């Protein structure tokens, strides 16, 4: 492996390493997909064949996605801690490539989860999508925001006790703006009327960018103590 390499190459190496580790155990993706399937089937079974309003559907969709994400995404740093590899990573990797590599990995996981969940959701709950492009954009923006925030916060909790519960508690307030905007935009995508939802979408992207910038600044303080 080349020791001297550019920042982008390092990010790429971290991402590849994460994906290979994941491919070996398939632990994170398995728990994500099964968790989402469990919640979705619980919701769908109890609702039965009732027709729900677009707003209700959007709320259900994002709640399933949010709690599935909470179940799987904290592992990104915890697994390094439990397998004892975090010290090696600390010795070889700079803070920024690790943050962005792990962020990309979480982002990939979330997108896989969405691709798995969305068709099932549409089929199970008998939902019509009127604005598919908008829906995909919203998923992209929402997943970016969730991946950014959970990556930084996952690195915060590795030195804490009761990590699983704490992760959900500290993530929720910061993810709430993402969730509220995503629900609003998804409602628009599920309704037949044409929408002009550019402004909330813009705010969502701006929020993602601000969070990405501030994580990049703050991660140095977490990684080098």
């Amino acid at each position, binding site marked *: 492996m080349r020791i001297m390499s550019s920042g982008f190459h390092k990010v790429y190496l971290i991402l590849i390493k994460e994906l290979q580790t994941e491919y070996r155990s398939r632990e994170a993706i398995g728990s994500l997909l099964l968790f989402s399937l469990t919640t979705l089937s619980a919701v769908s079974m109890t609702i039965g064949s009732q027709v729900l309003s677009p707003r209700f559907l959007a709320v259900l969709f994002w709640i399933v996605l949010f709690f599935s994400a909470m179940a799987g995404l904290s592992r990104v740093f915890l697994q390094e801690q439990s397998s004892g590899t975090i010290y090696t990573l600390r010795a070889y990797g700079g803070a920024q490539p690790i943050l962005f590599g792990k962020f990309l990995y979480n982002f990939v996981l979330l997108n896989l989860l969405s691709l798995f969940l969305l068709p099932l959701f549409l089929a199970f709950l008998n939902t019509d999508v009127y604005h598919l492009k908008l829906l995909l954009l919203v998923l992209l923006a929402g997943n970016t925001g969730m991946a950014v925030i959970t990556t*930084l*916060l996952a690195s*915060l*909790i590795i*030195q*804490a*006790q*009761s990590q699983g519960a*704490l992760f959900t*508690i*500290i993530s*929720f*307030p*910061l993810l*709430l*703006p993402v969730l*509220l*905007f995503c629900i*609003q935009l998804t409602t628009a995508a599920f309704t037949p009327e044409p929408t002009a939802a550019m402004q*909330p979408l813009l*705010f969502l992207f701006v*929020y993602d960018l*601000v*969070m990405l910038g*501030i*994580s990049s600044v*703050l991660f140095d*303080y*977490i990684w080098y*103590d």
Partner: protein
Amino acid sequence: MNSALTIFTMITVFCVFYLVPQAQGLGSLVRIAFFHIPVAWVSVLAFLLSAWKACCYLRNRKLEDDVMSSRSAGLGLVFCLLATISGAVFAKLTWGSYWNWDPRQITIFILLLIYGAYFALRSSIGEAEVRARLAAVYSLFSCAAMPFLVFVIPRYYFSLHPEPILNKSGSLQMDTTMLVILCLALIDVTWIFFKCLQAGKAAPDE
């Protein structure tokens, strides 16, 4: 200093109860606002001060900055609760329900959650330096989300909450007596906040 603060507080309370005129449509209920607005202002001030002290800690690594940051957050939590409760009572008396997820209520609820999460994070880390560092990071991270909560979310939901004192056109829609007394109340509550903060500094409880 303590006696000065006591006298000042008594004067303010007297003014609020005896000098504030009855407001149009609200009657005596307007007096709640003289508690609610200063308390809400202080809870935001405490949040910003906590973030500022967190920033100082990350730069200088002095544990007293962390103590101030957590003291400030603790007081902020108390003031935030008071603002929430007084706001909910006002909402019940004027609009008929304690809680209806008004944008302002969403914002203050998220602020409460952030404070709660901050203390949950602190209490689950044993080592003082690690706790200080990670709590500071969380404090700054949530501070970056604050502008969105305060300015962006309220735009997208219908609100019953009155316009902030300085509304968009920059004009003041308040009686002069009320305005003067509101300023008194603001100064008083901010003073109380800093007094509590200093008291904590003299005898750090961590």
